[in-house]
């Protein structure tokens, strides 16, 4: 007798998207700082796009709002503005700091 396999305990294990997202914010902050230093701001496009779609949902509204504005500018054909990216880096730094404080 075969049949479909019931879910194992590992499948039922809780996922931690919030924790993973905070780690991602840290990585994104470092990546954007590096791109600002090297002047390769155009490479920040995919990071900005991902943040635009997710940051607000995870409660990081400032990051989400700035990223969304930048992402829409890029979608309409504009280049990523350096000053906007600097603002995003600042918002990311604050978000990571706040997340660290709240544990």
């Amino acid at each position, binding site marked *: *007798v*075969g*049949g*479909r*396999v*019931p*879910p*194992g305990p*590992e*499948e*039922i*294990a*809780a*996922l*931690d*998207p*919030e924790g*993973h*997202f905070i780690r*991602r914010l840290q990585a994104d902050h470092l990546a954007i700082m590096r791109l600002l230093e090297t002047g390769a701001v155009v490479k920040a496009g995919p990071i900005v*796009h*991902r943040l*635009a*779609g*997710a*940051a*607000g*949902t*995870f409660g990081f*509204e400032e990051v*989400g709002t700035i990223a*969304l504005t930048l*992402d*829409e500018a890029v979608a309409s054909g504009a280049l990523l503005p350096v000053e906007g990216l600097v603002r995003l880096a600042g918002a990311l730094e604050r978000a990571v700091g706040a997340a660290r404080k709240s544990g």
Partner: protein
Amino acid sequence: MEHVAGRQLPGPTGGLRSHVSASRQSRILVVEDDRDVAGLLARELRAGGHVVDVVEFAGDALSAARATDYALMIIDLGLPDGDGLDLVRDMRRRAIESPVLVLTARRKVEDRVVGLAIGADDYMAKPFALPEVRARVAALLRRPSRIRESQPSVGNIVVDCDALEAVVDGVSLPLARKQFQLLELLVRRKNHMTPKRMIEEALYGYDDDVCTNSIEAHVSRLRRVLSLARAQAVIETRRGIGYRLVGLDSAAE
């Protein structure tokens, strides 16, 4: 986020991750390339007792939707291998009628209008709040599914889904419940190959023990009943894939 593999569908890219969390629930497909957002959605839906499949790519979503009759699909618009709107359009063109909740960070009215016009059933803007997800999913699942034919037919076979009776030339067929369900599925998908996996999902719950040859046994019995009743349709087998019901006119072509 670690997704744990359950049953897998062949896909061109990332494959499908499946998770079963309850014995009686709706099956929902989440098409979202952001793993954190997908994880959040999946966890929320599973907590609500639903079975959730997650895919990241449009190609995988199409494969999954062709193989499984989802109660709902939540589709992000910006996918790595294509636009979610194209995916919805493609699904509707292929007569995949599961309700679609479009998810997007795009704020333009035109995007929302186009999404609804091509066949999406609802729209949710990112960022979203989980209570809003719950409410919209519940509302979509409450809606009667798209108008389904209540008496689908092939040749002289008519399946009366209200009376739970199948007839050939007006004569009722002696079918057990699972054979009736199988016939209804094959008639609704007439002339299309129906994967064995789809049949299993239609006939059995996750907690059911399924004998390895149970589908073959049901098909064999159904063939005999249809043949004795002189039905103008036959069940074709494609080994390793599934079954297809074709009218005798089509089969002769």
